[in-house]
């Protein structure tokens, strides 16, 4: 860890230096990212349903309103069209809004504002107006959220030109990527894998959950740093195959690979648009096999794009067909959540298949 730290600023107070890093879970890291950026830039504002006084249903904005005031951190009416539309207007004024959509499943009313407005404003106005907004939204399943609190809609947005899509897998990356996203001058959709807010969930839902206290990614600088957008990270180097994944699935894949005893190279994409194609290409050309894992529905998912890219660029290096491990093309069920979730068994079967070919 730490290779991506571009700028660690240690905070000082009362003449004593604060520790450069501390243990954080992903919520704390996201909260710290907003705190650090708001302290540096008075134009950063945070808005969304329940984000103000209460500090957000997942506590991601806790303490920010009391620290920065109600005109910079405020609750909004329950209208996602309004939240994103207003954020775009604030961006046009010159602010740097960080709107929260409480669950990614609720983002659809705002689709027009995101797709036709935020993502197109720079292009259609020849750069006169831009939408430097970062839309934060918890996504993904594994929390018994049922079909309206579990979806992974990233593929809808990666299909749209003009918007960046970022998904962290550790507290360290969450903070560094979120700061980079807020400081970016283009609209960014920052999807937070809520199943790993509290710990690196490895897919074994029936075993005790781990928290971030022992994971290297839970050691987070207290000050300002960025993890640049568009850079993937090799979280496990290996020779037998390449596993492309992001969000919760990074940890599920790590465990599945360990259990299968396969020397896989696991690449955490971290940013889907712009994608780190060089990292993907280098890994697949080295291993000759590629497995793609995401929680989102299968058909037309981002895995389809990854599969096409790998085929276009690495075809003559491939020794087996590309494997996709995904959620099913159904709504996310409540009681049958773990039958839907692409967990250890589904990944293990795919590993067996791809290594046999």
């Amino acid at each position, binding site marked *: 860890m730490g290779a991506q730290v571009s700028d660690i600023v240690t905070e000082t107070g009362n003449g004593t230096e604060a520790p450069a890093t501390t243990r954080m879970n992903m919520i704390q890291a996201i909260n710290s990212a907003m705190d650090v950026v708001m302290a540096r830039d008075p134009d950063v*504002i945070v808005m969304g349903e329940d984000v103000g006084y209460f500090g957000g249903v997942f506590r991601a904005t806790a303490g920010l309103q009391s620290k920065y005031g109600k*005109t*910079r951190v405020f609750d*909004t*009416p329950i*209208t996602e*069209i*309004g939240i*994103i*539309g*207003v*954020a*775009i*207007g*604030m*961006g*046009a*004024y*010159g*602010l740097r*809004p960080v709107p929260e959509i409480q669950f990614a499943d609720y983002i659809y*009313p705002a689709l*027009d*504002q995101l797709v*036709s*407005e935020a993502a*197109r*404003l*720079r*292009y*259609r*106005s*020849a*750069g*006169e*107006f*831009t939408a430097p907004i970062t839309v934060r939204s918890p996504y993904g399943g594994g929390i018994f959220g049922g079909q309206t609190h579990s979806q992974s809609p990233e593929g809808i947005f990666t299909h749209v*030109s*003009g918007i*960046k899509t970022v998904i962290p897998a550790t507290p360290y990356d969450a903070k560094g990527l979120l700061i980079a996203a807020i400081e*970016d*001058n*283009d609209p960014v959709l920052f999807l937070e894998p809520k199943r790993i807010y509290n710990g690196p969930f490895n897919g074994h839902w029936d075993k005790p959950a781990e928290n971030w206290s022992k994971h290297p990614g839970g050691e987070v600088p207290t000050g300002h740093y960025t993890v640049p957008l*568009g850079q993937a990270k090799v979280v496990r180097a290996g020779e037998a195959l390449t596993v492309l994944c992001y969000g919760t699935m990074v940890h599920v894949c790590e465990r599945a690979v360990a259990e299968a005893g396969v020397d896989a190279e696991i690449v955490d994409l971290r940013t889907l*648009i*712009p*994608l780190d*194609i060089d990292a993907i290409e280098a890994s697949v050309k080295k291993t000759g096999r590629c497995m793609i894992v995401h929680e989102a529905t299968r058909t037309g998912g981002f895995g389809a794009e990854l599969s096409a890219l790998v085929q276009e660029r690495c075809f003559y290096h491939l020794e087996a067909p590309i494997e996709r491990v995904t959620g099913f093309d159904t709504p996310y069920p409540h009681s049958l959540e773990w039958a839907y979730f692409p967990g250890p068994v589904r990944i293990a079967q795919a590993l067996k298949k791809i290594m046999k070919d």
Partner: protein
Amino acid sequence: MASEHPRANLPPLTLHVPEPRFRPGDAADFVAVEVPPAGAAPRPDSAAEPRGMSELAYSLVRVLDDDNRAVGPWDPRLSPDALRRLLADMVRLRAFDERMFRAQRQGKTSFYMKATGEEAVAVAAAHALDRDDMCFPSYRQQGLLIARGYPLVDMMNQIYSNTADKLGGKQLPIMYSAKDFGFFSISGNLTTQYPQAVGWAMASAAKGDTRIAAVWCGEGSTAEGDFHSACTFASVYRAPVVMNIVNNQWAISSFSGFAGAEATTFAARAIGYGIAGLRVDGNDALAVYAATQWAAERARTNCGPTLIEHFTYRAEGHSTSDDPTQYRSAGEPTAWPLGDPIARLKAHLIQIGEWDEDRHAAQDKAIAEDVRAAQKAAEKNGILGHGLHQPLDSLFDGVFEEMPWHLREQRQMMLDEEAASGRPWARK
């Protein structure tokens, strides 16, 4: 004994589908349109609570009476010079529209939209707002740009998507963007600008600025969720914004009944949100000016938003792409009971002894000459269809601030394709 058909004693349900009064071939009379006398509507203090002014959402603020006098409490008492400037800008807008409509018909561009009959709505608003207030227009408020002195030739360059088009040929004709003139980039998706304007106004307030925002949409698109989200936000945060609904009776071929006009006025939408609502004679430039001025003062003094319905009439087609005689009575534009905004302001200036027919004719001629000269200058920069005016690879500029690899790669694919094609139009 229970009936085989429950509630069989009731007539069957019926579905009401609105229908306009007149269709092609019908004589239009508009006797059903209530036109209260000029000067009758009260003018509350601009700091008054919305609760006490709901009647203004159902009446009609009018200043110019049938004898072309300015009457009543809404008379903005503009100087003769200010009145003449207002008139000149409306005339300029109409002349511009005529010229560009014809240019489209001559095949010089793909698309155009006129504001004929609605000139007062945008022009008088621009005169009443401060120059640095931020406007979020729909596609028919080119009058804002003209009134703020945006060069006609730059508008035409955009319409022609030519070498001097400031938007690099990336936008449909008339979808201008002019940040330096306080004119937000126009979207083709309806009413998306409503919450954006509210957001801009909220930002201005949050920053302790003194500038306000103004926004326009048509009556048809008040049905969009964006409109209602914007009204909620504007009300909740008392945003310094003037929200305009241009009720020109027609949304392409759908009459205002499909947006709810049979049931209530559009200004009355304000009442449920607790916003000040005004219904204004949109063909009366002085009424539009006065209402905008009142709403702007309200916004600028932290008294919150105002929703203004401009009751007007779209005298021509929606755009160059439709023929209004196919869906409405050809007699409607002339039968419209609130007259023509240019003719009315001109008559008022003459009535007060500050204008005459000769001066008007001379002004018409001078403005027509200006517009013609601008067109000539613009056409020197090219017209749509006469070759490509922008470098081919500019197609990829501005998707993001910095071009990512996949766009660079696609740009190269396109350039290779052009090199291989030898197409005569592909000049770089």
